[in-house]
């Protein structure tokens, strides 16, 4: 199907491949056409640099460092995928207690985000943070530790069950994989294969026998049809709309993965070219994750993170429920509606307020509401409905429902104690009501959907 390249479709693509598009970005995308826009989005970013020492001094500073880079970044898909892999390979500083290693871990995920899945799994298996997180550094021939082996299969590759509900591995397989990864350990700050601690005995795993090493296991698991199916299902659910493991859409992506020799980018591209991605089912079908909500909001507001306020920024991300570099457990975060259960939704309202009302140097972000309203000389032409429509367009929500428009227009004209406030857009009005409207839009249910 040829894609009808209009503003609504360009906005849909930018919400999924990025953090949403400003009206200016949409104009540019429409001028460039679909192919050029997609190619630019799919282009991997340069490797992530190393943060300065100060940014590695505490978790909130490191979180703020990455958030700031995401807000400023020009390759949002690399970050969207890094967040995807961060949830997939969920590794947390709560146990690793080494922010330098957590940075290395996320950098690995981001640098390989659109690369080859085998490289990614191999890198993760040698990653210091992961070796600590799942205890493989102390998985030794005479005393195996099965933690990494189990999660490598359950969470990182095949999953527990295949699409027909059959188990993908047995408890004996867990032991065999654990033995194959014996000796994959650390020497100081670096990965080290300790031959003395490796179990050179014969192991049997999914048709292979012999002195299997971790590399043999990775080859097998990366090429396992169950891994292809699961990656297809997870990537589709992340970028388009939630599907079950046995959905034919997952089969389609699995075939792309196999045909490309286990490359990630072709699967992602196939999603953005798929008819179902452009169907009604996919529109506004996903709940924005807290980082996506925060980065997207700042991007659309043309606001900036104040890096000297890490406690506000990192604290807000944590309160909203997505403490990056520190997921709650090996399962990562629960995507979807759990993000906006009571606490999460309330924290979004609180963060929306502190972003929308940022006006001095003590605020966590810099934000000038007048920037959203076009030329100042045209402000007097704006009435309530026009102002609300302008702000909804600026915040990537031109499709808000009629009831939302009425509620926001009512607020725009609501004075103190039930009086009517004339909508005269000047500096005072902007400071009072444009900030208020921005806070209300950012905390509205419809804005939470991507």
């Amino acid at each position: 199907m040829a894609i009808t390249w209009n503003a609504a479709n360009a906005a849909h693509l930018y919400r999924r491949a990025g953090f949403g598009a400003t009206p200016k970005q949409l104009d540019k995308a429409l001028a460039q056409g679909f192919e050029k826009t997609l190619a630019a989005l799919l282009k991997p970013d340069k490797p992530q640099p190393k943060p300065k020492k100060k940014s590695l001094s505490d978790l909130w500073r490191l979180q703020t460092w990455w958030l700031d880079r995401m807000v400023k970044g020009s390759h949002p898909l690399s970050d969207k995928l890094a967040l995807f892999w961060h949830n997939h390979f969920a590794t947390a500083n709560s146990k690793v207690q080494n922010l330098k290693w957590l940075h290395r871990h996320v950098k690995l995920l981001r640098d390989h985000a659109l690369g080859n899945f085998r490289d990614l799994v191999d890198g993760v298996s040698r990653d210091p943070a992961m070796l600590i997180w799942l205890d493989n550094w102390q998985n030794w021939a005479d005393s195996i530790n099965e933690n990494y082996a189990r999660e490598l299969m359950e969470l990182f590759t095949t999953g527990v069950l295949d699409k027909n509900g059959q188990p993908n591995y047995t408890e004996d397989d867990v032991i065999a994989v654990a033995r194959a990864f014996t000796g994959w350990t650390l020497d100081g700050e670096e990965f080290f294969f300790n031959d003395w601690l490796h179990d050179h005995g014969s192991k049997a795993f999914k048709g292979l026998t012999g002195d299997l090493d971790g590399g043999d296991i990775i080859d097998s698991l990366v090429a396992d049809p169950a891994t292809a199916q699961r990656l297809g299902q997870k990537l589709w659910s992340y970028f388009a709309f939630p599907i079950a493991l046995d959905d034919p859409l997952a089969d389609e992506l699995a075939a792309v993965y196999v045909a490309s020799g286990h490359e990630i980018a072709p699967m992602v591209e196939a999603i953005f070219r798929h008819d179902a991605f452009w169907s009604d089912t996919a529109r506004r079908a996903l709940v924005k994750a807290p980082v996506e909500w925060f980065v997207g909001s700042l991007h659309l507001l043309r606001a900036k993170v104040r890096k000297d306020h890490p406690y506000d920024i990192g604290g807000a991300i944590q309160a909203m429920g997505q403490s990056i570099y520190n997921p709650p457990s090996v399962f990562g975060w629960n995507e979807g509606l759990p993000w906006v259960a009571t606490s999460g939704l309330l924290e979004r309202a609180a963060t929306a307020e502190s972003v929308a009302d940022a006006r001095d140097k003590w605020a966590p972000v810099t934000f000038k509401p007048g920037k959203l309203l076009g030329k100042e000389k045209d402000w007097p032409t704006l009435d309530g409905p026009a102002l609300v429509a302008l702000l909804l367009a600026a915040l990537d929500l031109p499709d808000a429902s009629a009831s939302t428009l009425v509620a926001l227009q009512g607020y725009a004209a609501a004075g103190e104690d039930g009086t009517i406030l004339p909508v005269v857009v000047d500096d005072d009005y902007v400071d009072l009501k444009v900030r208020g409207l921005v806070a209300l839009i950012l905390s509205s249910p419809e804005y939470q959907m991507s």
Partner: protein
Amino acid sequence: MTFSRRDFLKFVTLPAAAGLLLRPQLRAFFAGDGGTRNLVLIDLRGGCDGLNMVVPFGVNGGTYSSEFRQSLAIPQADVLPLSAQVGLNPRMIALKSHFDLGRLAVVQGVSYPDPDFSHEVAQAIWQTGELSGFAPQGWLAKYLHAQGGASPSAVAVDGSITLLLDGSGGFVPAFTDIGQFEFPYDPWHAADKENRRAAYAAVAAGLAASSKAELAAMSGTSLGLLDLIDQFTALPAFTHVGAYPEDGELSDLLKLVAELLYGNLGLRIFHLPYGGWDTHADQEKGDYHSARLGTLSDAMAAFHQDLVAMGLADDTLVVVFSEFGRTVYQNGSKGTDHGTVTPVLAFGNAVSGGLITPHPSMDPADLTEDNELPMVADFRDVFGTVVESWLGGSAAVCFPGHAFGNLGFVA
């Protein structure tokens, strides 16, 4: 509810004993489902090593220390005996004294047929009551759904709703702190706060009947949290009398539950996920696991003191469980891997205390094909007992297809 002399004597030296702390009247606006019995579920996430919690020092001639736990075994001399064969971890002194007073029931060897070794799947099984683990509705949500009730009666004391409470068809709030419950406003324009709040409510109300499930759900949550803001603003102050450990985790959650119970908001069922039990390595380094069990025991005992002070000790049941126990054999990293059976604790004045089921055999010949302990009790019978005998619900509704047997630990 009665305030027994025995409880009273424990508090004669505490200020609270000056008068029974009377709870406010239940506010009709926020009446929950009208039930009066409270339930607190402490969910030890990660798989707690039950063998070092309820230590089977004398089962099968002491194979626990000789065969399975060569360096991790709790020395028999230190164990707090519950019988000639098993006893509590030495750090659990507080719960041992409640056991002696008949308030602690220990269901041993709890699992289900063909147990799963994955945290995620096992947690899903324990929360849904479905052995497939792939069900969208928690067993407790099924109870809530059958119960109806116009306003919330259950809380996920967690960052977001738990599977156990998901799918009830009503609003189940999820939070770990009520300090955040304030409607955000711009301090430069405080007079506009009510306008913002009214508009926030109007936006949410306009989406209540949305055909998009997510929008309808968020609409309900937005309106529900405005109600909670009002309720929590008016929450009466409660002065804790319990001597809680300062762990910054479980104690804070149990204190919050005590405050909510005292406020009499109709919130009476609480699910508290409490992690930190996945001890693959160095389980007892720095006394880690035993100290955590001590915190659990002390925090539960402190919570009971709070309940006594507010006159709710007869009306509140605390149940402690975990998605699985750990391997009967310790591993090579001075830790334990994912196992099967685990003890479940039920605690409260209404409990018929004691060892409800025997410890599973520790004879190496009796281990399952995965080298794990055989099951003695099915977790669906444990929770089914809670549903039927405590909550007055139906085990058949919560655990459909399961042939329920009441374990009788709730009087």
